């Protein structure tokens, strides 16, 4: 054990926490730069601690590599990482996400038209949503082949129900008075749908879309564990674990975390733009 490393690690985390405390509660606490600085700085603190623990405790690289080793691997393997990223994220996750979202909206509108369908489909849908992907993924790989199509199918299955359930709930989330207003105008179904219920549903829809972002990436990666061509983030992770190349594994995890967070952030940004009127999006007033 190397106490200098450990001591240094904990000391820098403490120091960073202190600085963060000052910044977060100081002037300019609501500025965008602060909002960015604090979490990044905190993350750096965690990385330093991680490095210190690995170095200090002499953790073998085949168990947990140090951040510095991961970063080295990351910079040295950008071309492989890029190929994997395109295969898994762009082809698998993104296409599945889009297809799943569109399908969920369509079914939500259908379900919403008929109370009977809603009562029947939602419980069944909730039940199906509980099917663990680890069971579904091998089946879908068997059905749709080894390439990205089966990954997209897994993603469709994973994102479909959260978006469906949220959208259906959102379409019902109008206030009585808002609906009554439409009634006094004798508005048609479609008029009520597009002028009242769809706008009122957007906060819920985005809730579902946000949950679905992380699910999409995880789904695509996990599906590759059950068969894939010899590229892709999930393929690389499962293969390199067996080869004890843990630095590569973590480099892929890093890519996943960056891509997933960016995806989430993007959807959250669109949400801010679209649902600016919702109380949860209003700052100040």
């Amino acid at each position, binding site marked *: 054990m190397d106490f200098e490393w450990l001591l240094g690690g904990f000391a820098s985390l403490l120091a960073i926490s202190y600085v963060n405390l000052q910044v977060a509660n100081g002037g300019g606490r609501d500025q965008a730069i602060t909002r960015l600085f604090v979490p990044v700085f905190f993350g750096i603190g965690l990385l330093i601690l991680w490095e210190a623990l690995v170095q200090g405790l002499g953790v073998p690289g085949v168990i947990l590599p140090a951040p510095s080793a991961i970063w080295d691997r990351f910079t040295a393997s950008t071309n492989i990482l890029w190929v994997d990223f395109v295969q898994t994220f762009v082809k698998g996750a993104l296409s599945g996400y889009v297809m799943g979202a569109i399908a969920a909206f369509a079914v939500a509108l259908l379900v919403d038209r008929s109370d009977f369908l809603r009562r029947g489909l939602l419980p069944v849908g909730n039940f199906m949503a509980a099917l663990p992907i680890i069971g579904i993924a091998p089946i879908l790989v068997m059905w749709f082949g080894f390439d990205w199509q089966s990954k997209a199918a897994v993603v469709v299955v994973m994102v479909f129900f959260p978006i469906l359930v949220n959208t259906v709930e959102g379409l019902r989330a109008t206030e009585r008075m808002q609906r009554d207003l439409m009634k006094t105008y004798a508005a048609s179904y479609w008029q009520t749908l597009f*002028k009242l219920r769809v706008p009122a549903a957007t906060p819920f829809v985005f809730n579902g879309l946000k949950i679905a972002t992380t699910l999409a990436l995880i789904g695509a990666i996990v599906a590759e564990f059950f068969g894939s061509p010899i590229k892709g983030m999930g393929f690389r992770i499962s293969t390199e674990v067996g080869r004890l190349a843990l630095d590569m594994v973590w480099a892929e995890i890093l890519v996943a975390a960056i891509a997933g967070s960016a995806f989430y952030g993007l959807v959250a940004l669109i949400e801010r733009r679209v649902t600016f009127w919702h109380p949860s999006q209003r700052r100040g007033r």
Partner: protein
Amino acid sequence: MAPLDEERMNGVAQDPVIVAEKLDLTFQTNDGAVQALRDVNLTINKGDFVSFIGPSGCGKTTFLRVAAALEHPTGGTLSVNGMTPDEARQQRAYGYVFQAAGLYPWRTIAKNIKLPLEIMGYSKESQQEHLERVLKLVDLEGFGEKFPWQLSGGMQQRASIARALAFDADILLMDEPFGALDEIVRDHLNEQLLALWERTGKTIGFVTHSIPEAVYLSTRIVVMSPRPGRITDVIESTLPRERPLDIRDTPEFLEIAHRVREGLRAGHAYDD
């Protein structure tokens, strides 16, 4: 005395718009039935301005809702222009101002006011025309591009009034539209509403808690008592149609106000 009054009115050969006969409405709730309206008989003629006044929970809102086909009676009938309220609604007979503003938060004030116009298929230009007219009427020029949550409660309420006035419904149902406004604005809007009513000959049902407001505006004042909501008095106004604000200091006005107050008080339990 109420039944008498009504009988008398029905005798006169006027043009009945809303006719309620033996109207009953009972809500089924988890902890039992609530009878909101019982045996309500009332005729509102074309061009009438009828105010409803009564303690909170007496069924004023419920009556307006039945008239607008938002609620369906559990007994008796209510007809509108000889049709069912549902049919009347199909013909877009109603302008309704709810007790709370109920603007859509994702639409600007202007777009909120245009909402009924869009639905009823007005042309773009005519939408803009109507919008400007009613914005002026409720004194909200310049606020068209704000969102509802950027306005104070009173301004929101005015926007919702503008929305109901934007299209030319024959029947205007207003549920405490001026509750959140200060006296001056309220006086101003009272005047505007009277002028509009005179100009257009609309039939208006108006719920209020203010006795002077009811007396100032109405041709008839319906006094209700709670649990179950019944009509306890219908008071004909003897005031002329032309009503300057200071009519409120005349003995005639005070006399009617007094009668309304007595009718209201009868429905309360205070012994002071």
